[in-house]
């Protein structure tokens, strides 16, 4: 942990010159992402540009090939299992699918981290769980099973479960994907209010430009494994960069090509290409 000396105490998560590849495919090509304590930071980019990989690096589920991942001054790839699990108690991740345990009710899903990590008496546990369910507006759904929930409700339950141990950092993986406009609005409001009321640092990985810009303090734009733009949401939206423009305006073709790399079309159809 040699690189922790010159750390800015305001930075909770620091990603420095991180490279990551899977087999021959290079996914992250040297990115720097500092994330300020208490902020909502958006990481936007097209599908498959390495956003989720970034979250997995922060959570210690994978290790970078090169570069540093620091969370609260600790170098995540160098932690042993016990230290990593200790750190994870202070961070939460909201998966795209919600990842609720299908054999447990809503109440038990939210109670799960408390039961695993603490010895709270049942009455206090009940209070805590009901408070968290009230925060996400689903106190009345406590008896339901995950299969009986809509997509938006499932994500709210997962959010209640993520905040039940009061983490310092929450990572949201595509929180808006596959939701109707009302549910999107609810989730966006929740992310913002949790950040403001509990002071939780939030990282929102998403390709929903409008919702994400609305709630974030700072935004990074990723493309092809690199950071191609950053700034406050207003700055990013004003950017003149071709890359940023293509993404923000949703243009089908541009610096990110519409076509997957291929041989010339005519050669392919006439069978002349190898």
């Amino acid at each position: 942990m040699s690189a922790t000396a010159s750390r800015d105490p305001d930075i909770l998560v620091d990603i420095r010159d991180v490279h990551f590849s899977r087999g021959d495919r290079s996914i992250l090509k040297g990115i720097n992402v500092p994330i300020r304590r208490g902020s909502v930071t958006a990481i936007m980019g097209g599908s498959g540009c390495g956003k989720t990989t970034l979250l997995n690096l922060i959570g210690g589920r994978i290790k970078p090939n090169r570069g540093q991942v620091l969370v609260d001054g600790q170098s995540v790839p160098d932690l042993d299992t016990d230290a990593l699990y200790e750190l994870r108690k202070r961070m939460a991740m909201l998966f795209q699918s919600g990842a609720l345990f299908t054999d447990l009710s809503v109440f038990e899903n939210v109670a799960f981290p408390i039961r695993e990590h603490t010895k709270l008496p049942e009455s206090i546990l009940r209070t805590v769980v009901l408070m968290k369910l009230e925060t996400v507006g689903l106190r009345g759904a406590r008896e339901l099973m995950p299969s009986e929930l809509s997509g938006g409700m499932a994500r709210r339950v997962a959010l209640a479960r993520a905040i039940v141990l009061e983490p310092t950092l929450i990572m949201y993986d595509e929180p808006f994907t596959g939701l109707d406009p009302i549910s999107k609005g609810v989730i966006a409001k929740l992310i913002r209010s949790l950040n403001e009321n509990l002071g939780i640092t939030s990282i929102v990985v998403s390709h929903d430009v409008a919702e994400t810009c609305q709630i974030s303090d700072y935004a990074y734009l990723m493309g092809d494994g690199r950071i191609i733009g950053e700034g406050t949401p207003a700055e990013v939206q004003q950017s003149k960069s071709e890359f940023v423009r293509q993404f923000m305006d949703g243009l089908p073709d541009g610096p990110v090509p519409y076509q997957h790399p291929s041989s010339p079309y005519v050669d392919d159809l006439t069978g002349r290409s190898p």
Partner: protein
Amino acid sequence: MNARLTLATDVLRNLGAVVLNTLERLGRAALFLVEMLSGVPVVLRRFILIAQQLYAVGVLTLLIILVSGMFVGMVLSLQGYNTLVKFGAEESLGLMVALSLVRELGPVVTALLFAGRAGSALTAEIGLMKATEQLAGMEMMAVNPITRVLVPRFLAGVVALPLLAALFSAVGVLGGHVVGVGMLDVDAGSFWSQMQTNVDFQTDILNGVIKSVVFGIVCSWIAVFEGYDAVPTSEGVARATNRTVVYSSLSVLALDFILTALTLGDI
């Protein structure tokens, strides 16, 4: 000539790839077993986790085991009677039924049925938990999925299989009695007394129990590993489930031969 050479090298290369792949998976499975075993002490202190799985793996498998045991016992009795009666030895029917069940059929058939009913369910459940990010979610909540999800299921399988095998044998003997004494008029007294005098605790019953414990470990290990190692897609889980049944069945039959050879000591 050249084409033949290419064919030969292709065959050799593919063979090599298969062997390397198999060795790699075996190594992974072995490391996985070590990791699970190191988590056993933690799980033993939370017995409720094992009890829940004992219900899913054991109690829910009970019906198929009891019905199969009954029929296997009845068939054994019928077949055995037809052979024994030629030598005027039908009084030994009870002994024959009991020995076949306790030494061989009880552990083996139970393990095969267990792999088909409980093993495949375990693999599918764990594979789907992986595919739906439940295991990843657990990891991110600082809960080790190996000790929380896999070890209880493994231990439940190890405990359940010998118990199921014992019930299989017991019900099989009753089935043999129904056919032998009830339908074929074998003397009830000799049916039971021959069994009582000649079934030895150590060489017969204990060896059967050892077999079923080994099968329990192997079947549960394969089922849990295949689920955990499954490719997290629908196709991946389907293949993993398939592999669980095939590998478990083959391992059980091969191990049965080895264990029988070791315990009888005639080879």
